[in-house]
């Protein structure tokens, strides 16, 4: 079985955008927006990884760079063992068939002048995967049935404006699925939808994962929603991974001070639950001219003496847990001590 081999490996990936204005660049000093600033992770086949972070954390740039939709500044990405950044056009085309993207807003993705059949079948035509009209129709109807748009014939003739938001997102999913992808990357796939419809789409995606042996990467800012779709979690802040590990482990026991604060601020639909918010001063800055040391330090409530010196590496601290924080060990000892003394 190939269950444990990574389908995609990301190594030291960087995407810096140059700042072209200002007197300093005139005198030759180039400044950068370091949107993605050295990221490593891999995704095993059959897993479902959630990349979470606030706006400006670089999660969307990360995915766009991984897919070579924008050129990387440094690093490498391997898809099924093949390096993506040196692929020749033919291989790149195959790669882009094997990896499909689903976007937040299906209204913007689906051309309103085309029927559902044309929209869903477009990829097959572009990649020349069908020989005649009959086969195309058969594949389209199959894909529509896969996403539970039934009766498929009826839906295939409709235009986007004749569909609800949830139905449109199903069309977008069918459009990806028809190309038989290995990896599906979804950027906030349900955040535009009403709550009562979200669950249906998430359940559908979970079912499709089993039926089609898919691997998922989800990008989201909503950790509560993430819990229902992913088994792995990466928390990003200003272009770096702060924490990585199994979803439930991180939600129940976050280790990085940023993750702890972030989780404490997520509203929950229960008025009787008591909340303890961890304050983070200020707002997330733009990743330009970051201070030395840890990039979260200016807003961190748990700073240590080392935090100003060098940038903490993402280090493995347990069988499945990674964290980029100098202070975690000291905090852990303190916590144990406290627990110890309270037991006595």
């Amino acid at each position, binding site marked *: 079985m190939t269950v444990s081999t990574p389908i995609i490996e990301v190594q030291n990936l960087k995407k810096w955008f140059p700042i072209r204005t200002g007197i300093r660049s005139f005198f030759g000093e180039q400044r950068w927006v370091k949107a993605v600033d050295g990221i490593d992770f891999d995704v095993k086949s059959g897993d479902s990884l959630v990349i979470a972070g606030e706006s400006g954390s670089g999660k969307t740039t990360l995915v766009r760079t991984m897919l070579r939709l924008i050129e990387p500044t440094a690093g490498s990405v391997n898809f099924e063992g093949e390096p993506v950044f040196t692929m020749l056009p033919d291989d790149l085309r195959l790669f882009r068939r094997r990896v499909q993207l689903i976007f937040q807003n299906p209204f913007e993705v689906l051309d309103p002048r085309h029927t559902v059949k044309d929209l869903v079948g477009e990829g097959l035509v572009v990649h020349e995967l069908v020989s005649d009209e009959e086969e195309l129709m058969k594949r389209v109807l199959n894909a529509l049935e896969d996403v539970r748009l039934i009766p498929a014939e009826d839906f295939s003739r409709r235009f986007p404006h004749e569909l609800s938001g949830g139905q449109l997102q199903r069309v977008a999913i069918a459009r990806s699925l028809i190309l038989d992808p290995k990896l599906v990357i979804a950027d906030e796939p349900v955040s535009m939808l009403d709550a009562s419809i979200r669950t*249906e789409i998430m359940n559908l995606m979970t079912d499709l994962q089993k039926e089609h042996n898919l691997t998922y990467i989800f990008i989201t800012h909503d950790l*509560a929603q993430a819990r229902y779709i992913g088994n792995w979690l990466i928390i990003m802040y200003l272009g770096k991974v702060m924490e990585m590990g199994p979803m439930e482990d991180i939600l129940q026991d976050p280790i990085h001070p940023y993750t702890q604060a972030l989780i404490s601020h997520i509203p929950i639909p229960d008025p009787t639950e008591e909340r303890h918010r961890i304050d983070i001063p200020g707002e997330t800055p733009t990743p330009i001219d970051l201070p030395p040391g840890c990039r979260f330090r200016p807003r961190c409530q748990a700073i240590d003496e080392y935090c100003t010196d060098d940038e903490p590496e993402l280090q493995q601290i347990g069988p499945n847990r990674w964290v980029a924080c100098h202070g975690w060990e000291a905090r852990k000892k303190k916590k144990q001590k406290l627990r110890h003394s309270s037991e006595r």
Partner: protein
Amino acid sequence: MSVLRIEDLCTHYFLGEDQVQAVDNVTFDIAESEIFGLAGESGCGKTTAAYSIMRILPENGAIVNGRIFLDDEDVVVKTEEEMRQLRWRKVSIVFQYAMNAFNPVLRIGNQIVEVMLEKQSIDKEEATKKAKELFDEVGLEPERIRDYPHEFSGGMRQRAIIAQALAAEPRLIIADEPVTALDVIVQNKILGLLKSLQKKYQLAVLLITHDLSVVAENSDRVGIMYAGNLVEVGTTVNVFKESLHPYTYKLIGAFPSVKGPKRRLEFIPGTPPDLIRPPSGCRFHPRCPWAQDICNLEVPEYREYEKNHWVACHFAGEINFEVEP
């Protein structure tokens, strides 16, 4: 005494021959120092209700029935000129997209001063001083009243909008999705600010949102809307913990939580109805698992099922939500 009292409000939009019944027979009130959360999904009429109170409906929209009292003054019968006197002074509104709420070519401070000069009898110097105080109060540096909107982050703009809403000392603030476009940490800071100001000035706040988690944590009482109807109103704890309406129960159950054990999420099959020709009887009956014959035939009465807990369902209190037929 209530600051806002809405009775049998019906607001329709006119589309050629058709009428969209966007708000239909809505009744509720908000007391001084109270945050009332009005929640529901897109198209349920919550924003139309807010625009009816402000009387800022689009041209094809009109209040066709009902009364809206702001401190015993009926807004519905006011002339446009009389409404101008009420807006900002009695009631002001905070919109979702703070990005667009300020004119991008004018300094933010001037836009707040403008409101004060228009609505209060003070001179420019005094207004500027007051604008600085307001900035300080909402957590912005007073010197930054000379900044332009693009120099502010999303969270800062939302703070400035709140400062502007307070400029003419209103009794009621309508906050329409005030934090929806913001990240959670900023979101909480803005909501915290809104709550502290509400306490300090004994404001009545109408908090409109699609996010039931935000409602759960931030309101004293809650109203749930579906397809133009108010289906349930009560204290936040009652509505969340002892829901009476099937829609309320299902909608709350559709919201995930980061805390506690992972429970099964609810969903509601089907889509909200077309409000040009809404379903007969209870508007929720085509999607309701517990619907019976009467639900198709008779509009359920909006009634006080128990003290301060209102509901519009024929079978309120009789349904076991754990079991679907």
